[in-house]
């Protein structure tokens, strides 16, 4: 069996992200593995251990994304690969998905591709579905549990957490899944894993290595701006009784057109 986790480094969730004077987003704190991917990595390690298979961690991005790959190796995945090419600067999700799909094909024999629920920095999961489409694999989002997986029979049964409730779905492998926090308790890196990760030489594949052409982009980011500053004010409503205070508050709210 071969499980592939697709990841990226994102700013730490505690970091303060701002757009600087040159129009570039910047943040305090170091990059960390996309928080959702901690669950994807842990699930891959658990599957690998249970089924004596192989697990790979993959990213498309600049060198700073090695952080996420090394974290995956330190937690227990077997190998890592990174795709990068200058033609990918500012890539949209479709070009990103093409690169991921081509890299998965280059790795070969993937039975299961695991994503975290979304990329925390972009707040988007569209790439999950695009990658699945490019690969021609089934796709299962919002997975809260792998109920059964049979790599020999090429079947998977998962529990999906939906707004309507839990849904049990079976599918054929290979498949792409996107996992939720409920799926496991993220593992820490082991010290042996850390040593392995620190020594690992991670191959970097260009678009040419993947037989891809960047082509024309469907969408392009033209500018980043800081969100408008929200200025708040606190006013204490005074009054002799609760009823008087409530009446004054209601008047104020009507005046402010809140109600």
């Amino acid at each position, binding site marked *: 069996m071969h499980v592939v986790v697709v990841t990226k480094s994102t700013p730490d969730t505690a970091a303060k992200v701002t757009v600087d004077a040159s129009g570039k987003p910047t943040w305090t704190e170091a990059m960390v593995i996309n928080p959702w991917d901690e669950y994807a990595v842990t699930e891959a390690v658990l599957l690998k251990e249970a089924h004596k298979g192989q697990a790979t961690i993959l990213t498309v991005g600049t060198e700073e994304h090695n952080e996420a790959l090394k974290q995956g190796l330190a937690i227990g995945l077997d190998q890592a690969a990174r795709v990068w090419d200058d033609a990918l600067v500012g890539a949209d999700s479709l070009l990103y998905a093409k690169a991921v799909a081509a890299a998965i094909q280059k790795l070969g024999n993937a039975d299961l591709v695991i994503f975290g629920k979304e990329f925390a920095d972009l707040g988007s999961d569209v790439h999950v579905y695009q990658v699945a489409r490019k690969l021609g694999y089934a796709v299962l989002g919002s997975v809260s549990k792998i109920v059964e997986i049979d790599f020999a029979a090429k079947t998977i049964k998962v529990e999906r957490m939906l707004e309507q409730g839990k849904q049990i779905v079976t599918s054929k492998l290979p498949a792409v899944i996107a996992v939720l926090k409920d799926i496991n308790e993220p593992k*820490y*890196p082991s*010290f042996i894993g*850390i*040593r392995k990760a620190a020594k690992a030489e991670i191959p970097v594949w260009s678009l040419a290595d993947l037989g891809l052409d960047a082509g024309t982009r469907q969408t392009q980011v033209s500018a980043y701006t800081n969100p408008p500053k929200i200025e708040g004010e606190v006013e204490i409503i005074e009054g002799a009784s609760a009823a008087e205070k409530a009446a004054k508050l209601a008047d104020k709210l009507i005046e402010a057109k809140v109600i």
Partner: protein
Amino acid sequence: MDFLLTEEHLMAQKMVRDFAQKEVYPTIKEWDRKQQMNPDVLPRMGELGILGINIPVMYGGQGFDYITLALACEELERVDTTLRVVMSVHMGLNSMALLQWGTEEQKQRFLVPQAKGEKYAAFGLTEPNAGSDVAAMTSTARREGDVYILNGEKMWISLATKADNFLVFAKTDTHANPAHAGITAFIVTKDMKGFTAGDIHGKLGVRAGSTGWFAMENVEVPVENRLGEEGEGFYIAMSCLDNGRYTVGAGAVGLIRACLEDSIKYCHERSTFGKEIGKHQLVQQKIAYMQQWYDAGRLLILKTGWMKNMGMRNTRETSMAKWYATDMSVKAALEAIQIHGAYGFSDEYDVERYLRNGKGAVIYEGTSEIHQLMQAGYALGYRVDRPIRCELPAYDPEVWQREVVVS
């Protein structure tokens, strides 16, 4: 000269930080109030490999260097001193002594399970009436055939009721001159007949930890549990302190960082006189000092760690680092409380705990006064470190990471 930490150092540091912050921090106040140790702490530190972090893989450890130990201690004490205390006694004062002085058989029997986290270890030097004055100890060990009969009482023992193995010092010769030449070291296990232990409550700080006493009444300790030679105990104890103090100093650096980080956060949150308090110059002065203490303390500790890695004697440097970092951690905690104002005086914020916890470390493992005497002694030429029979082995990554013992 190289001040860069390696990728391995940084990843190990982050792993320990994540553990401490995610698993210990959320409930630390409750355990501190209860004056009990969170029962998950020791098993989790064992499972994650922290209890064997700098012990060679062939002895059940993780094969990292001595600098990693300091980084781990900094991260642990950033969250709570009691976590670092575990490393001081289990690793610094006990496991590293086995690595340094133990026979191969002793390493297999005691160090391997300790490094794997299957057994917890502690250290018994201090007595109710013998602290800094080590040679005044009254515990005795009388040889009878293949065993020593140990009697005496030890006090202020971290993990007294949690540890399985104790490195205990007792006098095999009560008339030796000088008195310290009569001290011998033994490995005593909690299951030995005549060994009893208990907790001490009502401490100012390290309340989420375990501090206690143990008593030995005619405890029969086999000869093969003697660490080093008869009469060598004092030198073993002092070498243990070179390692224990290193962990205490490294932890104190973490405590200064805790004071600094919490104060910076509060400076941005709290406003007085129409501006956030970080804009007030007298508050800025406190922040600047805390940053200075952190930077200086950390440099002293990491230099000591580097010396340990190189196999250089570091008694003088360890003493300096421990003295400086612990003294400054108490000052940093006082300043952090001052910055937090009345809130800092209550346990709504963590800074009052930092002060209570930090105060212990200027007393144990050499009071600040002992370190001042040592430093003056070195500077004036009154004190010189003589070579000891077994030095702490230099860090050799190849040996440390080798999987099996090559015979």
